[in-house]
């Protein structure tokens, strides 16, 4: 039962990482840039929800505030990087995105302070499944992750929007030649993914504590999951890597007795990532093709 409790709690964290990893994968597909700012963007949107709550906004007003700020951040992020995307300056783009994220985190610390904040004063009773316990925020995370994963697969595989996205991801020039507006596809993707990052930040803050570096901790593992899963490989690789890199270290630390404390988790994450990259350098579900 202890094993199942750890597995359940780890899955919640794994889902939060998976959501950001999906964000990274999707934007990488259309821009070839690792958009590392999405961790900070999610944190900023969580702070917006908190600030709205402190100001006495109802849930609907808070949601509108969330949407407006998400739109602004998506536009700022997109236009900051569009030029380097078009000119294929991928390293500069990654650095720009990273700098945008760091600057945003620093701004959040200045405006709201570095101390932790509880996202909501309301308390919701945890859910019990026999001997297993899951906080309400964890239930929402798993539900949201499930809905999102299903939704993304459906959109990518069965809708015209998904076909356009895949076309731009595979060959932007050819897609443009076929009448697909690559810039518009990228802008829409940025908007959708910003909402996703915001929802992830909100869920994470509700589940733990709202701090300015909340997103940094998530995006670090999400980025490693993207690299391990294979940035140019299928999304399923990134999703699987996100869960592997969260669940395995959590289980290892929590089920071993002795001196393996929580501080060992980053060591285990990087160690596991290194092993997976050595075994499958092109992605965990991708086999290297023999040259002919």
């Amino acid at each position, binding site marked *: 039962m202890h094993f199942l409790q750890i597995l359940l709690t780890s899955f919640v964290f794994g889902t939060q990482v998976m959501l950001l990893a999906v964000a990274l994968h999707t934007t990488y597909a259309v821009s070839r840039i690792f958009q590392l700012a999405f961790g900070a963007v999610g944190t900023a949107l969580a702070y917006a929800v908190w600030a709205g709550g402190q100001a006495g906004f109802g849930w609907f007003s808070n949601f509108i505030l969330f949407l407006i700020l998400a739109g602004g951040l998506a536009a700022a992020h997109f236009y900051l990087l569009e030029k380097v995307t078009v000119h294929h300056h991928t390293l500069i783009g990654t650095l720009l995105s990273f700098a945008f994220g760091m600057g945003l985190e620093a701004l959040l610390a200045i405006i709201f302070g570095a101390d*932790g904040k509880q996202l909501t004063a309301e308390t919701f009773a945890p859910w019990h499944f026999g001997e297993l316990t899951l906080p309400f925020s964890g239930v929402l995370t798993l539900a949201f992750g499930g809905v999102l994963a299903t939704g993304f697969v459906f959109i990518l595989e069965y809708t015209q929007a998904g076909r356009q996205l895949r076309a731009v991801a595979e060959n932007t020039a050819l897609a443009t030649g076929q009448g697909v507006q690559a810039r518009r596809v990228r802008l829409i993707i940025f908007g959708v993914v910003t909402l996703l990052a915001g929802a992830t930040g909100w869920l994470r803050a509700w589940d733990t504590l709202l701090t300015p570096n909340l997103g940094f901790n998530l995006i670090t593992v999400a980025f490693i999951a993207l690299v391990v899963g294979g940035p140019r490989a299928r999304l399923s690789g990134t999703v699987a890597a996100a869960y592997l890199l969260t669940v395995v270290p959590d289980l290892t630390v929590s089920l071993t007795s002795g001196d393996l404390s929580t501080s060992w988790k980053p060591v285990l994450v990087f160690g596991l990532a290194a092993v997976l990259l050595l075994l499958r350098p092109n992605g965990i579900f991708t086999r290297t093709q023999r040259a002919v």
Partner: protein
Amino acid sequence: MPSLTRKLAAALTLGALFLAGCGAAPADTAEAPAAPAVVKIGVIAPLSGDAAAYSTEMQAVIQNRLAKINTPTAATKVEVVYEDGKCEGASAVAAFHKLVDFDGVRLFLGGVCSSETLAVAPLLQQAGAVAVSALSSNPAIAGVSPAQFSLSYRDDDIGKGLATELGKHTKVAIISEQIDYAQGIHDATVANLKKLAPNTQIVADEVFPTGETNFRNLLAKVLAAKPEAVLFDPNVGKNAANLLRQAAELKWNGIKFYSNAAYLAADVGLAGVPNTFSNGMVLIDAPQIDTPELAALQAEIKAAGGSTENLGAYYTASTADGIDLLAKLAIEFHGDAAQIQTALATSTFDGFIGKGLKFGGEAFVQGVGVGKYVLTDGKAVYQK
């Protein structure tokens, strides 16, 4: 003949200097140095981060005392300069160097967190400075530098108090944060537990890094070890409440809880923690002080719009005594850090903490005990 001109100029310059020196008064008839118009005291404290609330209240206490020290007729004024130590060593060292090198400070009230004090203490003697901390309690502070003093109780006294309580159980678990304050209490508790209650077994001893906000797996691991009692040993701040909030999600079934000062403050944020979970939690911390003088001080601060709810009675008293003592000695010894250090080590003083207090050549003020509190409906109630 340019070289001759240069030699002549040098000789004339040396001669002028010699005559000026002869004209100076002999040392044994020199006038005593005049009292400085302003003495500066530097305060290294966590002005940002989880412990910032303590610093805000310390500033209110210091402002109150400065108003009494800097009277219109005072020959020497005391000026306080604040720098952010961020409750961690590297920032405290940077703050120290800034105060010493740019502000010319040699007297310090600080650090606040033990991490700050432990980082700054080794630098004091070389800088010709002396420091008195009002809040730092890690016993490792003793012996780091003869120029570092602390008006706080010691963590090993807290550890003894916690070990006395934990020793009533046969199986206990400890959850501590990886920070100097919490590790000081952890080490003192474990050491005293071995001495006072050798039959008590520590079935889980978990450490989490500072900044960790998701404790659920760690708590599940501790619960699986089936302890009879759990010691929560985090650093002060909102994350302590987060730890307790997540602990309350699990079913602890009659397990007794103990902790340090982390849950003493009124606004620690226990709103999300059910009283059914936290009621009865035993906290071991500084002794309660309820003298009329301290009550008057706290009332004055409240009337001025400040608060001392996070600091509590003891740390309000130690902060007031710290600034009073440093200011008094700074004025008396004209800011001479070496003489102030000697005076601190050998003198006796009266303050809000108590009467006849002394350091007696040690780093920590002598004769301060500990107090026991019990959480009742989210508030810590002192047990006489």
